[in-house]
């Protein structure tokens, strides 16, 4: 287990390095000049040049990247061109917002998706099953930010005053306000993944319930409820778990758009705004954080997978990549 973790972390290092080189090159090769944007429309060429010198944009790209990398290795991601704040401060400020949104969405997904999937499997062809089918198709068909827009239309125009549909309140600071502010965006984010999780749980349960050891358990007189909840569910959840890992990554990327629908000042909005202003250090910072989060989530999913199913642990060594 430990070996798997360290080898995967070791693999992540070159991935992250390549990624930062690529994002650095991409951003700097792109049209648009941060110094000019900073200086404003009617500024003199001298003023632009002065800003360019101050931001060290006049240095060769390799020098800029070398400087950025050495600082980054010491935990300093530079300062924002526009606000002058350290990028790490900005990230530390915005990350909890996105984490809160993602966590609430994840709770909704697991809390609704898995029970619904189990119900659908137990009552195959029944009402629950058909509802899951229809709802999950809708959840997959309508992208999360559109569900967000529909919710804003619903609670902003048709039923105003019931639910807040704009802005962010921290749950630790104000539980009631925080939850009510997070509920609609989290629901928008969760709708698609709920469907996926419910479908997978259903498929997993159906397959496991057909296995011989379930038949044996029933023959031995183990109560049906116990079979379903303890024996079947645990095995059926294995494939669901990998998808939950994927889902968290999906939530992170979905948050970028959903945050701008609900005007939530998280990492997503920071990303969108920072590259609109060509604020390279901030953009690269957000991209790095998102990528690290993504890699960590994948690693945790793999580790959990091994914990739940010892059979798989062995195959890691053979599998590679």
């Amino acid at each position, binding site marked *: 287990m430990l070996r798997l973790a360290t080898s995967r972390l070791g*693999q992540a290092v*070159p*991935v992250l390095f*390549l*990624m930062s080189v690529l*994002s650095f090159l*991409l951003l700097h090769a792109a*049209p*648009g000049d941060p110094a000019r944007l900073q200086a404003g429309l009617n500024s003199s060429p001298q003023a632009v040049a002065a800003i360019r010198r101050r931001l060290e944009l006049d240095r060769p790209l390799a020098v800029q990247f070398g400087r950025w990398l050495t600082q980054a290795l010491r935990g300093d991601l530079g300062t924002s061109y526009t606000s002058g704040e350290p990028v790490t401060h900005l990230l530390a400020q915005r990350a909890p917002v996105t984490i809160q949104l993602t966590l609430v969405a994840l709770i909704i997904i697991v809390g609704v998706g898995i029970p619904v999937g189990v119900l659908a*499997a*137990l009552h*195959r062809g029944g009402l629950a099953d058909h509802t899951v*089918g229809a709802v*999950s*198709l*809708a959840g*997959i*068909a*309508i*992208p999360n*930010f*559109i569900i967000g*827009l*529909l919710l*804003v*239309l619903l609670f902003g*125009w*048709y039923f105003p005053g019931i639910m807040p549909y704009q802005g962010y309140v921290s749950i630790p600071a104000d539980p009631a306000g925080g939850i009510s502010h997070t509920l609609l965006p989290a629901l928008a984010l969760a709708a698609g993944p709920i469907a996926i999780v419910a*479908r997978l749980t*259903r*498929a997993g349960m*159906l*397959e496991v*319930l*057909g296995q*011989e050891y*379930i*038949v044996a358990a*029933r023959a031995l007189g183990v109560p*049906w409820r116990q079979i*379903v909840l303890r024996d079947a569910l645990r095995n059926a959840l294995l494939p669901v778990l990998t*998808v939950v890992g*994927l889902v968290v990554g999906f939530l*992170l*990327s979905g948050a*970028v*758009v959903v945050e*701008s*629908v609900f005007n939530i000042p998280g990492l997503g909005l920071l*990303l*969108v705004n920072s*590259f*609109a202003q060509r604020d390279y250090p901030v953009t690269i910072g957000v*991209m790095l954080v*998102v*990528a690290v989060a*993504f*890699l960590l989530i994948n690693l945790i999913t793999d580790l959990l997978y091994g914990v739940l199913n010892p059979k798989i642990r062995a195959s890691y060594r053979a599998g*590679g*990549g």
Partner: protein
Amino acid sequence: MAAVTEVAPAPPAGYEFPLWRRLARKRSTRVALILCGLLILLAVAGPYLTPYSPDVGGPDALAGPGGSHWMGTDQFGRDVLSRLLAGARISVFIGIGAVAIGMVPGSLLGMIAGLRGGSWLDSTIMRVMDVILAFPVLVLAAVMSGLTVGQSVRFGPVKVNQVVIVLLVIGLVLVPVFARVARAQVLAAVQEEYMVAAKVCGTRFRALLLRHLLPNIQAPLLIQAAFSLSIAIVAEAAISFLGLGVQPPQASWGNMLGDAQQELLLGAWWLLVFPTAAIAAATVGFNLLGDGLREALDPRAAAGRLGAQPPPTAASGDVRPRT
């Protein structure tokens, strides 16, 4: 929008019907074929059907559906129906183009990596794919196309507009998706007797790849392509919604939603509902098509999925869970 669908190794060939007939056997797949066909038809014929110019405003802004504007008008007085039809062409163009760009190099790279499994070539290719995959699809696509917003980029003599940039970017992020599917398939296939036999006979690398492997792993790639079409259409919508993709006044389903957002609190539901319906129809169409293809080409993987027959295990008939 699950990025990578897991697909079991392809079943042995030798079907009794042509593909389209097996596809048409299932009702949901017939619906899918109709939806996809309709979408492509509208994309081709749309510009000849538009009642108004999609990009030019008229006198009545924010008019509700009815009368002379079946789907109403937006805040600039532009006809929503006309913009929807123009957007269909953009969506289909970006969808098909992006999937082609993701699928061809992605599959090739994945196959080469799989065939040279465990070598430096394999690990180099797959690490580069990991770099692309390390970003969530949408974030990478949004950032990259955001970098060129409002400007056309020159590749030598070729001037590329924003629509093509969005297409290229979505295509790029689809490359690792296909590479992974292809590699996994090849790793399973190299154990098969036909591959061992071909290798023993000293078949050249290129022939191994294209003549022996490709026909045997094309089914999962085709299935992935159907799902990727819906991914591409949704990605375009999201990127353009953020204002980083197709630029106004040119219509796309995504930037129509961006316009809708600004008028949402005035209750202009028609600006939101019609593009949503179009996107939903397209994604449902391609997803159901993917499901149908999977069932027709790869029955083993399809078992247990929504609407499919129960998995054909020996015990499945014996247990009927009580309520």
